[in-house]
């Protein structure tokens, strides 16, 4: 239900000066404090009463959270305070990780993308997270600051269930790091919403592909699917189809069917499970065809 009042429930705004202070505060206030960056998910849930908090802990401005840097040897680092628009409009992201720019640009509206962050999208752990799949197939690794110091958590072992991750009390995700892009990387993010732009995804398909001598087809394909399982996930089943044989339209069809067979969607207000399965097939085929056309030029 939509709360007719614009106000948030009573809570305190906390702005720690250091990561250490932030982790300590969060660890001392488990269940009542949450890291706060863009607030685009938290505010809605706070207003609906689904989320109850005493403290919003503003992490914008903490060390490393404002970093957005690319180095051809090291890769890309995106801090927790970096917004979707900053990612979608960054020349290095557009040039080296065009699929990430596309995924970030597909989220909600322009003004919301000025607040929403990639790290927030990831930490929210929604099955529908638009940027999660792309970060996964680009081999993203999260830098997490906890009470015991800093550790790396690969994105593919980060999610446990809808809204649940491996994060422990006191943890603050500071940034995500993507390794340098594979040579010849081509990718896309196909999203089905109730309208053409701006909606939550009913189905999201992230594809990345590049020439690879390790694969019998000569190419490595990576495919991640959103909104069709408890958490966004990489469909190894569909990827496998594309590794063994010469890439043809028929093989792409086969991979799309494999993608469909790998999902476990639910019925909800945005779409039925049966519809979602069909759309996974169609969108995967569309994404693979587009990527293959660019790759084989």
């Amino acid at each position, binding site marked *: 239900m939509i709360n007719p*009042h614009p106000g*948030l429930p009573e809570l305190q705004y906390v702005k720690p000066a250091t990561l250490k202070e932030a982790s300590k505060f969060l660890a001392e206030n488990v269940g009542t404090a949450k890291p706060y960056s863009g*607030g685009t998910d938290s505010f809605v849930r706070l207003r609906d009463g689904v989320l109850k908090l005493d403290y*919003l802990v503003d992490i914008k401005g903490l060390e490393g959270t404002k970093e957005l840097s690319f180095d051809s040897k090291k890769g890309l680092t995106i801090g927790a305070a970096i917004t979707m628009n900053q990612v979608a409009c960054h020349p290095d992201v557009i040039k080296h990780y065009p699929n990430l720019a596309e995924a970030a640009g597909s989220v909600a509206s*322009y*003004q919301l993308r000025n*607040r929403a962050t990639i790290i927030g999208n990831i930490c929210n752990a929604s099955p529908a997270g638009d940027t999660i799949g792309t970060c996964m197939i680009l081999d993203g690794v999260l830098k997490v600051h906890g009470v015991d110091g800093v550790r790396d958590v690969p994105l593919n072992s980060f999610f446990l269930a809808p809204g649940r991750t491996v994060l422990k009390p006191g943890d603050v995700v500071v940034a995500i790091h993507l390794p340098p892009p594979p040579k010849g990387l081509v990718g896309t993010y196909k999203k089905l919403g109730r309208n053409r732009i701006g909606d939550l995804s009913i189905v999201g398909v992230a594809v990345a592909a590049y020439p690879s001598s390790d694969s019998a087809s000569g190419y490595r394909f990576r495919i991640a699917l959103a909104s069709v399982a408890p958490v966004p996930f990489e469909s190894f089943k569909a990827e496998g189809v594309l590794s063994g044989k010469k890439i043809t339209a028929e093989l792409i069809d086969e991979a799309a069917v494999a993608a469909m067979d790998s999902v476990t969607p639910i019925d909800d207000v945005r779409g039925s499970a049966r519809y979602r399965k069909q759309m996974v097939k169609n969108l995967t085929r569309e994404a693979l065809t587009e990527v293959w056309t660019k790759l084989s030029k």
Partner: protein
Amino acid sequence: MTLKTITLTVNDMVETVDVPQNMTLLQMIREKLSLTGTKNGCSAGECGACTVLMNGEPVNSCMVLAAECEGATIVTVEGLAKGGKLSKLQEAIVKAGGVQCGFCTPGMLISATALLNRNPHPTDTEIRSAIVGNLCRCTGYVRIVDGIKMAAK
């Protein structure tokens, strides 16, 4: 609840305001500064009626805490006209008939102002993408887009 004192610039005026910690930027603008041009629609970051410029970029002011706006520069719809004269965009929207009930207009104007700042000659698709987050329940989009196009000329 303890209040937080913040100093920020709103429509070229420096303001110092005591705000409750759970107050949104939208509430502060309307209730503390009495600038009621900015509207509250959905309180969920979807309708865009509360859109303002924060440090030059449009944001949903219902999704920003006032307490975090220390030092920020805010422009609301009241700040678009200068010296009693409407901006070129405002004139164009009026001429195109882009105002029906008027509830979405302040947010539309802010989103379109930001668009023209970053892209002075947008295509139709770029205009429509830029106002995806501004819902007009009179559904008068065609004339709003016409107005933005007129202002871009």
